Structure formats: C-alpha cells, structure tokens
C-alpha cells in the first residue's frame, strides 16, 4: 500500500524539476529507488504478492491434490519442485503457502501496529503515570522472548490461523509501542504541535493529524521488518506443531512434515523448497526494510 504510493510519488518527482522543493515522502521514495538492494527486495515482494493474490494462475495443481501413484518425484518439467510423500505438487503448495505466510505476517503486523500505535502514542502524549504504567507493562512482556511468548499463547489458545495471528500480534505489540512512543516523543515538542495545541486542537486530532504522520518514518521501517519477523515466527510455530494444521500448505508446516526425510539425500527437494521460500521472503522484506531505514535516515541525506 505504502509502496504503491511511494512509486507514484517517485514518478511525480521525476516529472517535476529538480530544484523545486520536494516533500519528505517524495524524497524518501527517490532515495529508495536509488538503493538497488531495496528495489530488488521490493520486486521479490511484489512477485510474492502476486502469488498470494492469484495462486491459481501459477500453481498447476491444488494444494491438497493427493496422487498416490506420483509420490516422491524429483523436480522435473511437470513438477518444478517435485512431489511430496502424498504425491502433492510441492511448487503448487509453496505458491498457495505464500498466501498464508504473507497474510499472517501482514495481518499480525497491522494488528500490532494498531494496538502498539495506540498504546505508544497514548503513553507519549499523556506522559506521567499512564506512560509509566503502559511502559512497565510492556517491559514485563518484553522480558519474555517474543517467540517463547508466542509459543505459550499458541499452546494456551490451541492451533489454527486466527490463534496464530493473535499470538504473533501479542508478541509484537510491546516493542511496537516502544517504537511508536519514541517516534512521537521526537516530534511532540516541535513548534507546529505547539501551534496546533494553541489553536485548540483536540488530543485525538493532535495525535492523528500532526504527530503520527510526522513520526511515521521509523514506524514504517519497524512495520516492514516486523512482517518478516511475523512470517518466521509463524513458520517456527507451525514447525513445532503449534501453528496451522496440515494439510494447510504453510511453509513451516510443510517443513515439519518434510523433516523425517532429512537423512534421505535423494529426497532433498521435500525439505529444501519450503525452507528456501521462507528464506527468500524474509530476505526480501529485510532488504526492503533496511532500504527504507536508510531512506528515512536524515544523516544519510546528501
């Protein structure tokens, strides 16, 4: 969503003359477009998004089309990634799996953005007691490693995609509210905020119209990287049997079923491809997130 907007801004910027003053967004988009690694990441992400939106167009088979006469076929023209122990086309499963991994990553990121954003900005704007209370609660949660927290939540709620998203969201919220709080604190005392307050803007308007948009940079970076974090956590939870249940083609879930063949070298494709997909996705998101961070960083401006 953001990325499309940036692309548009980027194009706009190119049309405008160079010496004209440019907005911060256009500036960011421009600098991002100069960062090859980030653009590469973005391209991969876009391909994955296409996979997720139109899996039927890419996959030759359904994700649970079992064919017991075609088990353990090594990668070939018809099955580019081979078939698994139940005769399912691994490439098709991987493509359908994109939808699950990306949506788990995105939805849990959006949920934690909403919750963490709310908590973080309340805490930054109000300060004092509420700041202390919210941040101490966050401290408690942050003292538990994120994955461990997600495991305990998943174990308590049971398996399933919704519970998986809830678990990852809760694990992400504390650090997210930290980020939002810090970002808002940096703009809180700027003159334009004071000006808005002077003409009687309400607290909600202050936060939503003035503080949040101006503090958005670090939050977007954080969000992008958290999508990657969410995807790995989801895969890890499914791998240990706490995430989505088979036959859902979640990558972690595919890996856990494949791990029994890890000693059979001739069946390498069962283990390798789901793992590679997790790697590529997280790698692309991290490249893009890092690029965004550099683009937002005023110190790298020259």
């Amino acid at each position, binding site marked *: 969503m953001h990325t499309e907007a940036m692309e548009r801004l980027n194009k706009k910027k190119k049309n405008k003359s160079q010496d004209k003053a440019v907005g911060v967004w256009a500036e960011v988009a421009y600098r991002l477009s100069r960062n090859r690694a980030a653009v590469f990441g973005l391209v991969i992400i876009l391909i994955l998004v296409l996979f997720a939106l139109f899996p039927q167009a890419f996959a030759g088979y359904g994700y*649970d089309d079992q064919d017991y006469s075609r088990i353990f076929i090594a990668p070939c023209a018809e099955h580019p990634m081979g078939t698994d*122990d*139940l005769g399912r086309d691994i490439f098709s499963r991987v493509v359908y799996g994109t939808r699950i991994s990306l949506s788990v990553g995105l939805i849990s990121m959006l949920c934690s953005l909403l919750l963490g954003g709310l908590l973080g900005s309340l805490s930054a704007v109000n300060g004092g007691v509420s700041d202390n209370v919210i941040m101490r609660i966050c401290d408690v949660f942050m003292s538990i490693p994120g994955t461990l927290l997600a495991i305990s939540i998943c174990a308590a709620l049971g398996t399933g995609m919704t519970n998986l998203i809830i678990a990852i969201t809760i694990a992400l919220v504390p650090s997210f509210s930290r980020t939002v709080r810090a970002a808002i604190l940096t703009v809180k005392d700027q003159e334009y905020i004071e000006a808005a307050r002077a003409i009687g803007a309400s607290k909600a308007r202050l936060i939503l119209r003035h503080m949040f948009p101006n503090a958005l940079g670090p939050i977007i970076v954080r969000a992008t990287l958290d999508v990657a974090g969410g995807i790995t956590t989801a895969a890890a939870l499914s791998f240990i049997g706490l995430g989505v*249940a088979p*036959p859902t083609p979640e990558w972690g879930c595919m890996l856990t*079923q494949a791990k*029994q063949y890890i000693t059979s070298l001739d069946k390498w494709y069962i283990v390798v491809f789901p793992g590679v997909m997790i790697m590529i996705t997280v790698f692309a998101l991290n490249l893009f997130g890092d690029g965004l961070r550099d683009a937002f960083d005023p110190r790298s401006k020259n």
Partner: protein
Amino acid sequence: MKSHLRILALMLAMVLLLSACGGSPQEGDPSAENTGDGEVKDTLVIGNYAEPTVLDPPNQNMVPAALVNVQIYDGLVRQDNETGEIVPSLATSWEYVDDYTIRFHLRDDVYFHDGSKMTAEDVKFTFDRGATCSQKSMIFEPFDPAKTRIVDEYTIELGTKDVFPAALSYLTNNGTLIVSKSAVEAAGSDDAYGRQPVGTGAYKFVDWIAGDRIILERNEEYWGELPEFKNLIIRTIADDTTRALALESGEVDIAYNFAPAQVDMLKNSEVVDVVSAPSYTTNYCGLNSAYEPLSDKRVRQALRYAVDMDTISEIAFASGLPADGPVTPALSCYVPAGEDQQYEQDVEKAKQLLAEAGYADGFDLILSCNESQARISLAQMLANAWKEIGVNTEVRSMEFSAQLNEIYNGESQAFLLGFVAGGNDGEFYRAMFQAGNDGADWINYDNPEVNELFDLASKEMDAELRAGYYTELQTLLRDEMPWLWVRFADNIWGISKDLTGLDLDPEWYSEYRFITSK
C-alpha cells in the same frame, strides 16, 4: 576477525554434520566392535525411545519402562515368542484346582538380587500390592487377593473373582512381574523402590543416570542360562533420527520403534539388520458416537468405503499389514474377514450410505492425531478421501498428552490412535468395546449384543466355545465399525549385524538375555 571465526565455526559444524551422516562401518567407533586387541565385547547397548518413569512393574504403563523391567524381573510364567505358548518361568508347573483357582509350584532355587530367597510370600506380596496400584489395575482386577493362599514355601494358589479363562495370559503381562517383598518394604516408598528395583532376572540394576542411561549387570546367581553379555546399558535417545544414526554408527547395538523414513535408511545400512515381527498393535481411527452423524452405523461404513485403506496405510506406516478388523493376526483368537466384509474402496456406495443415513450433503468432522509423522500423513489422506463424499474434515494434530486427554474425556469426534493388546487373549479387547469400560467410553459405544458376547467369552472355560464367541464378536464389530481399522503394525528393530538371538516380542518387550554374538 570476529566474522572469520564465525565462518570457521560454521564450517566446522558442517564438517561434523557431514561426518555424522556418512559414517561407514570401517570408520565407526572401534570400541563398539572390540575393546583393545583381542578383548571380547562384553557390553550390550540398547537405544530406548523415552525415559522410563519407574522400574516398578505395577506402577508403570509404558513400553520404555516395561522394556527395562523384563530384563530385571521374572514373572510366574512367560510367553515363548517363537511358539506363542505360555511356558514356565518362576513357576515350574501349575494346575487348576477349580474354575476359580490356579495352583502354582515355584522354583526353589531362585534368589533376588538383594540376596533374599524368592518364596510364595513374595508372590502373594506382588499380587496384594498390584491390586492397589492404579497403572496396572486392569491386569490385577480379575484376581482376588482374598482368595490367594500360600500352601507351602514354594506353592501358592491364586484365585480369580469370577471364572476367568484368560488368567494365564494376564500373568504374562509385565505388570505381574514378581517383586521382592523385603526390598519393597526396605525402600520405604513406591517411588524410592521404582529407582532401586530388585528382581530375580538375568540382569540386575546397577545405576540410573537420569535422562541418559540405565546400567544393568549380569546376575551371576541367575537360575536360568546366563546371558553372554556382562553389561546391559539402556540409553534414552528420544529423537527417532538420532536413535537410528546412533545405531548406524555403532553407538548402540539394538534400537527399536523408528519412523518409516528411518527404516528405509537402516535397510540400506551395511552394519545394521532390520528385523520385524507382527505385533499386538492395531492402528485405528476411533469414531465417537457422541457426535451425532457418527452414531449411525451407515455413516461409519461410508467413511470406510470412501478410502483406499490398503494404499494409504501403506504410505503412512510403510510396514505391517492392512487391517481387516480390530484383532491383530498375532493373536490366536483372530479370524480373517469374510468375503462380504472386505470394504474395498467404493465411493458411490459410500455416498449412497451417507444419503440413506440422511447426510446426503455430508457433514463437518474434526479428526485429531498426535505429532507422529505417520499419523499426520494418514490424517491428511483420510481427510482428502472424505472430502470426496462431502465430509468436510479438519485435521488437528496436537501434543500426545493433550490428545489423550481429549479422547479420555470422550470429547474427540474422530481420532487416530494405536491399540496394543496386553497379551494373547481376546479379553484384552473388552475394555475397548464393551460399554462401561474406558475405551468404549472414549467412543461412547454401547451395543447390547457386543456387551453380552464379551461377558460370555470372558467366563467360558471351554476353549472352542470361547473361540466361537470371539469369532462372532469380530464379525459383529466388522459390521458395526466403531473404529475404522487402519493397519496392523509390525514391530521393527534394528540390530547390529554382529548379533543374533533377538527375542521378537509382539509388545516390544524383548528379553536381551538371549542375545549372542554371531
């Protein structure tokens, strides 16, 4: 600098990994073959798949613990796994005094590992104590402690509450292994005794390193033939892959219970023999009648007709035989299914049966299984086949104890599980199908005809009539289909090529005293 170190460490890890994968016999640990020059191997190492709870026969109910117990203790009788016959052990002979009472004549030359002599007093103590232990209550339940009578020091009479033809089969169960009265009393508590077991067996307990190994030593005073190996070490190696690799590298001599993928790997090994034998285990899918659609026999049959069970169970388990009923062929009361009860895959017939039962549009079903790969694969294949007849199945793989909890509470709709008969007798199936018993409650199954047949069979002293009841029961159950039978499991062991004499026990309880070098 730091990053160089990291790369170096990574490479080292890779090298280790590769060498672990490609261990050929020549490179294997030489100490596993011979210790020093010419010295004969005197230690046998077993790979166990879980840590035993206690080494106290009536206070455990798990294969990894019972497996150790059968090395340390002897029972009154034992089952010869080659002939399937019940043969003397601590009792030299026995006779029925009346329908309720069996008199056992005990050996008079048996000493416990603590030096005390084994007498009728210890046998009485074992059965009195067993009656109070919950883990093996099912085994001790038919026996009546009030009727136990010590005739003389080496003669004892055991009484049953009712006429009970299965009594001798029950006495082959590892729960009834004879414990030393003085040792149990000296230990103070059951828990303490469970860590310091004292039996009469060929091997005596030396040490237990928690989470790692149990060390046993040959009992030089053993009443039977002395085992060849002086030391018996039973190691706990929980991970299937690690256990199989330990076997291949010569770290352990015998291991058991592998995933199908590991069996394939071991079959190609040059140092390991893979041995399998039919077991008392039936893998099945329980169908809970408490869930409305499953209470109809036609629906249960439809679920069976919808799948090609031979093919999918072969893929999931890779060994054993397709099941044609609840009773495994390893039991003497097994009768093969008749022509009319074969249940070949027939999707049209399945749909028709569903329609007759009023579920032409299908229904939703939750199928639970534990995290065993074989069961997860099976669950997915069942769900896939049932989708064809409109039964929308959600697979739930869960942690084993959580799944058992759900099943025990009768809350599972359909579940994958294995049933192991506790001995060679149809009586062991009573708990699974006769209403009012645990297993029948899990699936809320109550069929008056089945209930009555189990009662009749349980009390029938005439072997032929008894076999007739079990035949009738199997025909009835095959029609009723309270379970979908999936596969009769084979027990699979891996044993070093240098060894022979493995006792192929249908319940895994091989006595390792019979192992010899080739």
